[in-house]
């Protein structure tokens, strides 16, 4: 694989996807410290939102320690070079949230839908594009469809005004060939000015390998998370990705040692428990379930005695999509009553 001289945009997730393992309780001070360190290391793009995107604060997904507005404002006021992004899932957040994020100084809006439901994103992508924001269409659980189906959905988002389309491996299920097939088709069929991105989860320890496959197939942006802080086994560890790219001669504009420091000194200490490839996380990746289901399944295990990995297997078997956290407790009750697990 030759990535020599290739410019790669690395996008940090630890203050958004990392909200999942933190149960959305990252403090403003921690946000400021982490974003400040990432900014100094030269990370060009940092995502800050509730784990489930703008408006995600809820009984269903968890209330955050602060509002999205407070988090985004604090981070925007901290960074000197980095741009700040926000995630928005239509059906959870609305265009009102989008306008609020832009007012806070967010300049990248990532509109996320399940990989078959791109046409619910029209109004949000339209507005973001009209507001002159960097507008990303983010197709989640992309392993559940063929590359051709993913392309069709990516084209819809592109037609609404997205200037970048993501193949999002929300379950950490993909293997490098799966990534290559999807990214290569997006790259060959979308407009040449449309950027392509890949968002990985490390549930099969494929974060870095999959991200390299994406770059080799033509991706421009790669999501990762300092120290891997993210749902499931976490995201592609950003400092590892940056170091690998440095070894391969790709350019990221990042000082890899400063990024290592940020991960080690700022992110690791805030973890409630190590983000690692636990049995639950492995099951997510092996069977293909949405990574943020993990803690919900663990809580259901504590309450109903059904092993969390069995609940996650059942969530995958039912072909659930992102956001269906409310089903987890029901499944645990059913499995406990049936005594089958």
């Amino acid at each position, binding site marked *: 694989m030759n990535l020599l001289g290739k410019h790669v945009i690395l996008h940090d997730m630890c203050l958004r996807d990392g909200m999942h393992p933190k149960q959305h309780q990252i403090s403003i001070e921690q946000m400021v410290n982490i974003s400040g360190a990432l900014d100094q290391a030269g990370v060009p793009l940092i995502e800050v939102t509730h784990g489930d995107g703008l408006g995600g604060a*809820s*009984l*269903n997904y968890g209330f955050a320690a602060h509002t999205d507005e407070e988090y985004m404002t604090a981070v925007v006021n901290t960074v000197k070079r980095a741009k700040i992004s926000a995630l928005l899932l*239509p*059906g*959870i957040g*609305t*265009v*009102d949230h989008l306008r609020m994020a832009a007012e806070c100084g967010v300049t990248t809006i990532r509109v996320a839908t*399940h990989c*078959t*439901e791109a*046409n*619910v994103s*029209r*109004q949000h992508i339209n507005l973001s594009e009209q507001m002159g924001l960097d507008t990303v269409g983010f197709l989640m659980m992309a392993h559940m469809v063929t590359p051709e189906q993913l392309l069709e959905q990516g084209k819809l988002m592109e037609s609404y005004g997205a200037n970048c389309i993501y193949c999002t491996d929300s379950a950490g299920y993909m293997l490098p060939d799966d990534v290559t097939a999807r990214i290569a088709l997006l790259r060959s069929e979308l407009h040449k000015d449309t950027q392509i991105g890949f968002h990985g989860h490390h549930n099969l320890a494929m974060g870095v390998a999959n991200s390299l496959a994406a770059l080799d197939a033509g991706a421009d942006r790669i999501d990762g998370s300092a120290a891997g802080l993210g749902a499931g086994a976490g995201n592609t560890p950003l400092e590892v990705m940056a170091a690998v790219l440095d070894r391969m001669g790709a350019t990221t504009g990042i000082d890899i040692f400063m990024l290592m420091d940020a991960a080690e000194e700022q992110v690791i200490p805030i973890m409630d428990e190590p983000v690692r490839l636990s049995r639950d996380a492995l099951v997510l990746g092996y069977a293909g379930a949405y990574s943020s289901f993990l803690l919900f399944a663990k809580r259901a295990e504590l309450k109903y005695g059904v092993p969390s990995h069995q609940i996650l297997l059942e969530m995958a078997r*039912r*072909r*659930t*999509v*992102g*956001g*269906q956290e*409310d*089903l987890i*407790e*029901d499944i645990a*009750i*059913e499995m406990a009553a049936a005594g089958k697990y």
Partner: protein
Amino acid sequence: MKKKLRAVIIGPGNIGTDLLMKALRSDWIEPVWMVGIDESPGIQRARDYGLKVSTNGVDDMLNFIEEDKIKIAFDATSAYVHAENSQKLTARGVTMIDLTPAAIGPYCVPPVNLDQLLKEGHQGNVNMVTCGGQATIPLVAAVSRVQAVSYAEIVATVASESVGMGTRDNIDEFTRTTSSAIESVGGAGKGKAIIIINPAEPPLVMRDTVHCLTVDTPDQPAITASFQKMITEVQRYVPGYVMLNTPIFNDNRVTISVQVEGLGDFLPKYSGNLDIMTAAGLRTAEMLAQQPT
């Protein structure tokens, strides 16, 4: 028994046709006209059932309102054209039941506030909120009639096949309208609505979760009984409305999940989200028909 109230259905699409199937069985409502804007399978179907049809919008049937004694109109078109339809028909004394998201008239969730609306004499235009609203607001109200609810949140999970382009083009309208009705009809201090669309095959049956935060410690037996009573009320017009597991109490948080299976009149059974709209619209008309005059 009173004579049936005669009705027009505007919009011969999936919703209008499903409503027609239900209305044809009604003891209280007689569908007389189907209004479309062009020839379509829905118009032909209505003709086959013996209805008069217009393929030129409501204007072609306005002159027949008195002759055909039309008292009720169901609008299953879109928010954009509803306002004009409503104005033309209500001016002629027809009660408009709005199945679009236009929400010109007050929200109506039959087992929760229809009695109140009838008492207050709202005869002009009532709005049926959203599918998620019809499925969940009865449950919010079941808690708020027992004790104060500071916050209520609903999560509607629906099959991709059952979500039309109207909803998809403006999904924020679902979120806003449902949230607002959770407060004004459901009685929660603050409301929030979430919709999740799942493309699994075979399509999943509509599923709704309602979370409420009560101001004081929840009175578990009273709330559980209130849920059961409310579910029985909804089952009068949506027999496939059933509770999944038992209510979950966690400090001041009350959670209940229901499944909504439709009757499968014209729409597939899994699309309980659409069935509950047409059934609630018809139920509203039937309650109107049963009013003493």
